[in-house]
């Protein structure tokens, strides 16, 4: 059973429905004590980093999420702001992230490229597979992005997908039983569904 964290930020309905369409029942989790009932948890999120972290702490999810991933059978997926919060920090705010994967979040900076790219990065964009932990894809995959900050990863082993927007940045990250997607699979119709299917098939094997 999949648990989708509802901490007041981000729209959980599309995620619930996409999993439902794929044949995977899910439950919205408002009580952090219930996290242990699930073996796959989704952390969604739309909004600012500090708001997200603050709400997670206020609702008691912050520590419980860290506890959840100790058991390597459990899988945690962060989406959009949910992915950003898996990192150490963000230029957008002053709060500390969950620190589950070694990366920070920086604002898109095109100054040195002198380009016409607008911020936020909003729209469809392609990903390049950096690691094949979610399997091989026959065709180019694209997803819907809406974000102004992106991950800067220390260890390239934590990079799952790369995307180009002015320059290359990690659009998906992974470490053992923790995965993050910067884009919105629940807004990426057929591509998103295929990816979430792969996510459901993923197990961490040490």
């Amino acid at each position: 059973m999949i648990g989708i964290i509802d901490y007041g930020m981000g729209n959980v309905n599309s995620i619930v429905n996409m999993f439902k369409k794929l044949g995977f029942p899910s439950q919205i989790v408002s009580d952090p004590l219930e996290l242990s009932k699930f073996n796959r948890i989704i952390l969604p999120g739309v909004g600012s980093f500090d708001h997200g972290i603050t709400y997670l702490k206020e609702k008691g999810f912050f520590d419980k999420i860290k506890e959840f991933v100790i058991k390597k059978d459990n899988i945690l997926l962060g989406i959009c702001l949910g992915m950003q919060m898996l990192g150490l920090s963000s230029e957008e705010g002053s709060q500390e992230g969950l620190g589950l994967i070694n990366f920070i979040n920086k604002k898109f900076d095109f100054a040195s490229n002198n380009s016409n790219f607008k911020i936020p990065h909003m729209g469809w964009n392609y990903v390049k597979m950096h690691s094949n932990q979610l399997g091989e894809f026959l065709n180019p995959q694209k997803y819907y992005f809406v974000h102004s900050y992106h991950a800067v990863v220390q260890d390239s082993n934590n990079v799952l997908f790369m995307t180009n927007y002015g320059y290359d940045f990690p659009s998906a990250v992974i470490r053992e039983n923790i995965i993050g997607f910067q884009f919105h699979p629940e807004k990426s119709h057929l591509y998103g569904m295929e990816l979430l299917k792969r996510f459901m098939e993923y197990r961490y094997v040490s």
Partner: protein
Amino acid sequence: MFHRPRIIPVLTIIDNDLVKTINFKNPRYIGDPINAVKIFNGKAVDELCILDIRASVDGKEPNYELLNQIASEAFVPLSYGGGITNIEQIRKIIFLGYEKVVINSEFVRHPQFIKDAVRVAGSSSIVGAIDVKKNILGKYITNSKSASINHKSSPVDLAKEYEKSGVGEILFTDIAKEGTKLGYNIDLVYSISKAVKVPLIANGGASGLIDIQKVIKEGEAHSAAASSMFVYYGKKDAVLISYPSESELEQIEFSSE
């Protein structure tokens, strides 16, 4: 590898019904909007634009119940427009899962409103709508409240005002072309596109992919929106929800290079 320009179906709603108009008049019942959304999901649309064409005239609140159902079923980016008059409505709609809101009438009544909306929701979440008609002298004038009110601004002037207010995109519709499948107003689209840096979504008049190619290549629109070509089929306008395949869309020559 960059993504091609977006092709956006516009779904016009009255109450809980999906309808289709011609020149913003004579709405014809098409079907259940939620059903249409489900079908578009399976066809991998770039995004969907939901417009409630009576809300502003009737002075009603957005139909949150319907919008919620649509958002739950749509696995695609969504924008909503129709009767948005205050910030609280914008918050509610975005919270329901809509990426963008489209504002028209209220801007003309209260220009400060757009600036406030941009500040609260972010510029990329706010789309300024420009609907035009020709007046008796043959001059293009902008309209609102589903074309029931005329304004003094020219389309280009309105576009510049939107740009100054910080909108993320402009949705331009030539009412005379809307629903006619006679092609977009390429000249007017071009003049607006050249006048502002804000991305322009051209709407009104598309009969097929050739028109879409033309409005992007010659009109220099950033994206193309259409309605009739996605809900009708054939000479007798039978109702059929359709959308071109990815390979068809990739074959379109969007630039002159």
